[in-house]
């Protein structure tokens, strides 16, 4: 395992060290004392493992296709931007636009997230991105979402989602635990109960969440969840037909 002291390192140096080590066959990394270094593991296609202590900077794992990243601390904005494979686990909270344009892989966040999480996620063929949020999300969750899955566990039992959830959404689904006020939803989505298939999929991710973060499951039950999904997959299909 390669240990990297991030303190005082610019993100370019940090990423160079990682890439150089990968070339030499290294597969496991530990980054200590991260203070906002951007683009960590961006674009990396190898199935490496990186544990980060501290606060990694914006666009952690952007465009990545394979790494397994675990952050012991909080995340900033743009985690998993356009990633297509791999896994990111945040033992804390995270900022805005998490999973921006994400097209595959998984992101687990223990606590709450900020604004525009899952904006324009998409799925294709066997690529299906998933974001699991332990607490709650702020406004514009799943904005312009085209595919994939977002799960909000709302473990603190507060208001699970913010305003404009699913605005412009035309694919994928969001499972939310707790009550949802209709006025928080974008006009393109509706609330429906989960199907049996949805429930078995959700159960798998819930178990994974509690395993990953080692927190007590408490009384989380599948019946408490609702599904937010688009009314139409082509909301503007007839806009230019006349």
């Amino acid at each position, binding site marked *: 395992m390669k240990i990297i002291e991030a303190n005082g390192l610019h*993100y370019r140096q940090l990423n160079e060290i990682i890439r150089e080590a990968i070339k030499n066959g290294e597969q496991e990394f530990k980054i200590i*004392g*991260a*203070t*906002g*270094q*951007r683009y960590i593991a961006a674009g990396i296609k190898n199935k490496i493992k990186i544990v980060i202590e*501290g*606060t*990694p*900077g*914006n666009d952690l794992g952007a465009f990545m296709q394979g790494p397994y990243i675990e952050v012991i601390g*909080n995340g*900033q*904005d743009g985690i998993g931007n356009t990633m297509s494979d791999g896994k990111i686990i945040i033992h804390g*909270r995270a*900022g*805005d636009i998490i999973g921006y344009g994400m097209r595959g892989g998984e992101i687990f966040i223990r606590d*709450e997230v*900020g*604004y*525009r999480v899952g904006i324009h996620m998409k799925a294709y063929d066997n690529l299906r991105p998933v974001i699991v949020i332990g607490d709650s999300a*702020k*406004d*514009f969750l799943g904005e312009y979402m085209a595919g994939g899955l977002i799960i909000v566990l709302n473990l603190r039992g507060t208001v699970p989602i913010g305003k404009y959830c699913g605005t412009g959404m035309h694919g994928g689904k969001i499972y939310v635990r707790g009550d949802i006020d209709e*006025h928080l939803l974008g006009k393109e989505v509706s609330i429906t109960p989960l199907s049996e298939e949805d429930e078995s999929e959700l159960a798998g991710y819930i178990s994974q969440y509690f395993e990953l973060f080692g927190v007590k499951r408490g009384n989380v039950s599948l019946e408490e969840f609702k599904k937010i999904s688009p009314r139409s997959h082509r909301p503007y299909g007839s806009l230019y037909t006349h």
Partner: protein
Amino acid sequence: MEREKQVADKDYRVPSACGIFGMMSRSGRRFDGSLIIKAMANMRERSNGLGGGFAAYGIYPQYSSLYAFHLIYDNDVAKNETEKILSLYCQVEKSEPIPFRYTKRITSAPLLWRYFLSPKKNADDDRTEEDFIVDLVMLINRKIPGAFVASSGKNMGIFKGVGYPEEIGEFFRLDEYEGYIWIGHGRFPTNSVAWWGGAHPFGLLDWSVVHNGEISSYGINRRYLSANGYECTLFTDTEVIAYLVDLLVRRHQLPFELMAKVLCPPLWEEIERMPQEEAELHQNLRIVYSEALVNGPFAIIVGFKDGMLGLTDRIKLRPLVAAEDEDMLYISSEEGAIREIQPSLKRVWMPTAGEPVIGKIGATSYATEHYIS
């Protein structure tokens, strides 16, 4: 100084991503500027070297009863003209160059001067002392070509210029000052030209404002301010926020929580869902202050003599994070910059869009205060 030297989108690339940072000691403990310089350097990627600056509170305790004017001059003529006006309207207790050292990249600078003043107000002048000072600042900025008042508060000062913030901090020797509140800015100019006076923070009286974003309501805000005695002369949209805060909080006596709701009012559909009393309050605020609404993507930090305030636009188009340890409150564009100077924090949170984070010296909690009793 060539003010029109560089044109956004023409002379340089313009992705908008300024970095802002504020730190204050709740107990009023003074500390030097090296910490905030380090925090700003951490967010170097958010600047492009075309502007950086700092506001510091508590740095002139020996002159705390006097107005400290920081002036930026293009030339000696501007300096002479300004000094004539200053001695006409004020007792100039002290006048001296602002100390600086040239750095690797900052090898030239305009004339930088500071004055400690007490106003000479006539007995029949019914303006408040603060209004008198505001008028004086407006007079200098408007009438004297090449002279700009960077700051005009008591026991505080604004240090700013063209360069990366950490270079500006080094240039102004901020490690030699001690303050209890520090506000910093790294600039990535988009809609306005780069010149020393146009860097952030913007200040008036004790107010200082740093800003990441752009104000699309600038035209309306500017007209409204003009009708209320504030002339926008600095070619930068952020200026309107400093003047709006002065108008709303000092002159109209609005609490900070309501001032934030004037700048970032709830949407009409949200007002409709509020309980009647609250709905009426917000309805009235929107009607009375429609021209003070600030539109466009922004995150700001406002410094004042006994606290600081952080705020983003209503739909959160710019980042802002807050944190606290035992004594300090931090507000920043990025958490990493806070961790750079304080790895162990008691609490880190993301302020809700359009809701202010308010820290006051001596206060026990930094949470948003309730504005309806």
